[in-house]
């Protein structure tokens, strides 16, 4: 069953488009016909309908004037005798139906409805309306009939097409093609001796095809013959290449291994020089660091010396100040004395005043009190000065002690400064020594770097040689492969050619073909 649906024959291939085309054509005809008939019938109904409506509208004006509803109804009765008329109603100007013999249906589908105004022509007012509904049933019927006819015709046409197609394809295409098929199958088997019959040659495309096939066979015979010869020549060359290539391969291998040895040695060398470079690098680093540190040390020392000088100065200043202080306290002492004198005097005055006061009696009591007070005051002054004197002595002692210790300090500082001078000189020597070390280390580093670079270059050069050797090895390998394939191909070619029989086999030919076989190995 599935085979029927497969497109495995020319007949079938033609059949489907033809059937589709025929079908499409008939569908188009059907559509065209339908639309034409539809429009014809509709226009018929239109003309009839509108003519009738017009006529009725005009003639009914008289009945409207006379309120002759009976006559209008009679009109309606007449109109609905026509089978195509579904309904006809006269209305008053408010669209209330006036006639009774026909009523307006609710469903107005599938109907052509004509509405006309019925006018009073003198007053140009609307007296009423007329509505007639024509059924489009006739349209439907004709449409159906048409569809049936068209369907039948389509079926007939399609069957005709199937039969016709089959017949034509067989006669025009398949029969002549049989000959070509014959030849083609013989060719497929390798029989290039085949020849086409001249008798059944027509002048159409298939005839041309057959002619071309004949040429093709002749040409093939020629070509295959040539190919056979060439195959043999190729085979020879392939062998020669194969041998020489093998020798080359050996040499290339040897080269390759030597290069490998050199490369590994160089690599070792490279590795060690890298180490040295690294180490000298780290020496340089240490030297640099030492230099740095000593420089820092020197700087710090200078700062230290400066600070020492500052202390010395300050110390001197303090001594000076203390001496000043000593002098000042001496001055205070003298002032104290003066105050003491004054107090003394005051005391005397006070004593005299008291005497006077006592002698004054009552009037002098108050004055005596005052005098007593003054005496007390002078006493306290003398007490105070005495205290002050004591204090000043203490200060003087203290100041003296201070001066002594300051002077001691100054001495110590002096000594310190002398020592730092010596240290300073030592540091400078260290600095210069470190500097020298640093430069030397740098030199070493540089030299070892240069060594490293040089060895790098050697290594890469050797690598390139190795690469080259490898590549040449590869090429040789490829050539070997190619020549092997070549050999193989020529074998294949020969065996392929053997499949074709180029001439009809007579004993003479057979001999030659046997010789060819031997040669090809």
């Amino acid at each position, binding site marked *: 069953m599935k085979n029927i649906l497969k497109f495995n024959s020319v007949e079938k291939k033609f059949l489907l488009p033809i059937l589709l085309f025929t079908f499409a054509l008939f569908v188009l005809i059907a559509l065209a016909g339908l639309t034409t008939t539809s429009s014809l019938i509709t226009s018929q109904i239109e003309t009839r309908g509108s003519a009738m409506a017009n006529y009725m509208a005009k003639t009914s004006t008289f009945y409207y004037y006379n*309120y002759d509803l*009976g006559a209008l*109804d009679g009109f309606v009765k007449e109109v609905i005798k026509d089978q195509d008329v579904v309904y006809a109603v006269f209305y008053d100007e408010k669209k209330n139906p006036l*006639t*009774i013999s026909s009523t307006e249906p609710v469903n107005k589908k599938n109907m052509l409805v004509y509405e006309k105004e019925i006018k009073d022509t003198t007053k140009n007012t609307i007296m009423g309306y007329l509505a007639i509904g024509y059924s489009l049933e006739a349209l439907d019927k004709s449409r159906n009939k048409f569809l049936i006819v068209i369907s039948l015709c389509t079926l007939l046409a399609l069957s005709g097409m199937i039969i016709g197609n089959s017949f034509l394809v067989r006669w025009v295409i398949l029969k002549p093609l049989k000959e070509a098929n014959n030849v083609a199958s013989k060719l497929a088997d390798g029989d290039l001796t085949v020849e086409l019959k001249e008798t059944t040659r027509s002048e159409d495309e298939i005839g041309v095809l057959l002619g071309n096939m004949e040429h093709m066979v002749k040409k093939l015979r020629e070509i295959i013959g040539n190919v056979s010869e060439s195959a043999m020549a190729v085979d020879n060359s392939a062998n020669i290449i194969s041998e020489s290539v093998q020798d080359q391969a050996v040499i290339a291998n040897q080269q390759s291994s030597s290069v490998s040895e050199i490369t590994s040695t160089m690599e070792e060398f490279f590795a060690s020089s890298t180490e040295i470079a690294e180490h000298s690098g780290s020496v340089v680093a240490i030297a640099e660091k030492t230099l740095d540190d000593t420089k820092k040390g020197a700087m710090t020392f200078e700062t230290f010396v400066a600070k020492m000088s500052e202390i010395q100065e300050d110390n001197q200043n303090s001594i000076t100040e203390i001496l000043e202080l000593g002098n000042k306290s001496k001055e205070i002492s003298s002032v104290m004395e003066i105050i003491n004198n004054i107090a003394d005097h005051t005391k005397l005055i006070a004593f005299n005043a008291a005497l006077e006061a006592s002698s004054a009696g009552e009037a002098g009591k108050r004055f005596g009190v005052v005098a007593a007070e003054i005496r007390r005051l002078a006493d306290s002054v003398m007490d105070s000065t005495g205290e002050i004197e004591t204090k000043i002595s203490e200060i003087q002692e203290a100041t003296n002690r201070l001066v002594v210790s300051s002077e001691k300090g100054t001495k110590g500082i002096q000594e310190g400064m002398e020592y730092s001078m010596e240290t300073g000189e030592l540091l400078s020597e260290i600095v210069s020594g470190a500097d020298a070390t640093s430069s030397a280390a740098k030199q070493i580093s540089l030299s070892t770097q240069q060594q490293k670079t040089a060895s790098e270059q050697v290594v890469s050069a050797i690598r390139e040689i190795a690469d080259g050797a490898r590549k040449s090895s590869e090429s040789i390998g490829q050539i070997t492969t190619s020549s092997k394939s070549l050999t193989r191909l020529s074998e294949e070619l020969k065996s392929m050619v053997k499949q074709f029989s180029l001439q009809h086999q007579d004993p003479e030919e057979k001999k030659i073909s046997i010789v060819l076989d031997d040669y090809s190995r």
Partner: protein
Amino acid sequence: MNRGAILTRVGRLLTVGLVATVLLSGLATAQNMVAGDELVIGMSNAQSGPASALGQGLKQGAMVYFDKVNKAGGIHGRKIRMISYDDGYEPRNTVKNTQKLISEDKVFALFGYVGTPTSKAILPLISQEQIIYFSPFTGAEFLRNPVNRYVFNIRSSYFDEAEAQIEYLTTVAGIKGIGLFIQDDAYGLAVKGGIMRALQKREMDLIGEGRYTRNTLDVSAGLNDLKKVNPKAISMVGTYKAMATFIKEAKATGYNPSFFNVSFVGTDALIQELDGKGDGTLVTQVMPSPDDSGQQIVKQYRQDMGAAKESDLNYVSLEGYIDAVVFVEILKKAGRDLTTDSFISAAEALNYKAGDIWFSFSRDNHQALQKVYITKVAGGKAVSVH
């Protein structure tokens, strides 16, 4: 050939000729000429069914007068013979009957038909056969306007009745919301047209409408339609049985507007059907009251009915009687030489006064009377309202 043979041949020819002449004259009679001592007229109306009172009443009244005339020697030496068929108020039957009357019975005129749809159905036939259509019991406008040469109406039109109704309702009763209950055929529409005309003249509209089918009593649907709108007055266009059913049903559900009928309803039959429940119902009349002995023609009617031993005095038979009276007056005027054309000429020249009722036709007017009376049902009788 011998003489005998010739004579026989001549004889044969003469016979054929005579027969032919008689036949031809017979044909002439049917169309144009009345020959002989008999005037044959044809009637097809509702002798059975829910409108039978109308047909029967009409026939009865007319027959009373025709019999009286015939007893007195007829008109210009001719006796009137009326052939009547029953169409049950169905237009199909009316047509069949009329065709029979014309082609078989060869009547001179059609007399006393009942109904609008029935008249409408045979109108083409009338124009085609050119036969007199006299005093149909209907107020349909199409029988009056445009004037049909052969159609003669005695009673006022529905338009006149409708105008009187609306005038009364708006001015006397002061009612604004007016509804309509109609028979769903040409009769209903004919009166509806008149009502609408009268309303539109007053710039009013109907506020609701209900319908029922001729010769049925299915009034409930229409009644409900109207109750929804609740008009204060309903103009009713139908026959007595159906209208009585409507009024009774409405009153039973507590719905009691003014009910206004047209004359075609059959007043006395309506009162009878209403069975005492109809008081207050209004009816427009196109004939004077059969109880109004003050009217000369009514008096004459009562006398003649009494003489004929007919006790059922009602509007419809009075109308039949009056129709017959007018018909006879025209015959008198037309003279012995009676053709359709001479009848028409006589009719159009008619100027007959019966008491203070004046019957006249003219070329442009084939309606003899114009009067509309308003009556109200009270105590089982139709009483005049002013």
